């Protein structure tokens, strides 16, 4: 279990592991690794709880029904897997404001949580808009040699690099 106690693996080993994992998901589940649709299903599940079957008045939730599926369980698994891995290496720790945010921008919790929420909102909106996220397009779609996925991945990083540079060079100075 020595390797589970390591803080970090070579990015090539961890990445190759994700590649091999994708073989298994294709073989045993006929599915590609992806996560973002699960957040949309969760939103639908919450709306269903509050408004009942009227959630199906929305075209999107007729197309993407709000229920627990393979990918939803995959996302729950990521939480558990990362928890196990971080516990084993002693990295699990409650942190509200991460580095380098706290040094560059400030240690206030409220500001960090508001910006994280706005970021999460754009991420959820953008993932549905583009039809996938860093795993669905960025890893799974690109390995299937999908043109849309390579273009999506390029624009994820183009947008990300532009806004991160503005944030850290502009706002934080």
């Amino acid at each position, binding site marked *: 279990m020595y390797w589970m106690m*390591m803080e*970090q693996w070579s990015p*090539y080993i961890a*990445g190759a592991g994700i590649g091999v*994992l*994708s*073989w298994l998901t294709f*073989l*045993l*589940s*006929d599915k*590609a*690794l992806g*996560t973002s649709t699960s957040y*949309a299903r969760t*939103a639908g599940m*919450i709306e269903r709880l509050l408004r009942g079957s009227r959630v199906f008045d929305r075209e*999107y939730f007729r197309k993407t029904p709000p229920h627990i*599926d*393979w*990918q939803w*369980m*995959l996302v*729950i698994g990521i939480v*558990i897997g*990362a*928890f196990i*891995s971080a516990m084993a290496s002693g990295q699990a720790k409650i*942190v509200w*404001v*991460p*580095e*380098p*945010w706290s040094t560059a921008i400030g240690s206030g919790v409220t500001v960090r949580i*508001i*910006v*994280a*929420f706005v*970021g*999460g*909102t*754009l*991420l*959820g909106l*953008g*993932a549905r*808009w*583009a*039809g996938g*996220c*860093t795993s669905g397009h960025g890893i799974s779609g690109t*390995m299937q*040699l*999908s*043109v*849309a*996925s390579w*273009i999506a991945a390029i624009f*994820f990083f183009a*947008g990300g690099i532009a806004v991160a540079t503005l944030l850290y060079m502009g706002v934080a100075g």
Partner: protein
Amino acid sequence: MARLEALRHNENRQKVLGLVFGIMFGIFLQKAGVTRYEVIMGQLLLLDFTVLKVMMSAVIVGMVGVHFMQWRGWANVNVRSGSLGSTVVGGLIFGAGFALLGYCPGTVAGAAGQGAMDALVGGVLGLVFGSWVFALLYPRLASFLEWGSFTKLKLQEVLHLSTWKTIPLVLILVIALLLGLEWLGL
């Protein structure tokens, strides 16, 4: 193969498999370091190329295996459709969120698992809310999402090469990129 088909269509077993695959994915992401805010921001500020190294390694290993399985008839490779309105505009919105949050939809779950409260309270709630906003806008967005649809869906069609030439080409280019990063000390 009949047993494999039965497994693929057994909803309860698939949920269990999803959970098991998720745990493995979570371990790989955490051990790769990409569930940490500083590693993702390091990539977006072009100071630390861990994210790209992890993604590109996963892509080339996955690409070879998945296409081998497709050739043997064990797996279905599917390409996604895309358009300027959907892929490019959506990609840029996603990128802005990626930089503000400092995690993506997969790594935010891993970050929450290791105790990052900004990921759990800000990120996950925001992702659910943003997806719901998309569901609200969807009827009005539908035609824009089709604008500028890509006519070529596979990389092979763009390159005018067979799958069996495209795979080694992508492999060589990605390995060259990774060697280049190491050579530059990034």
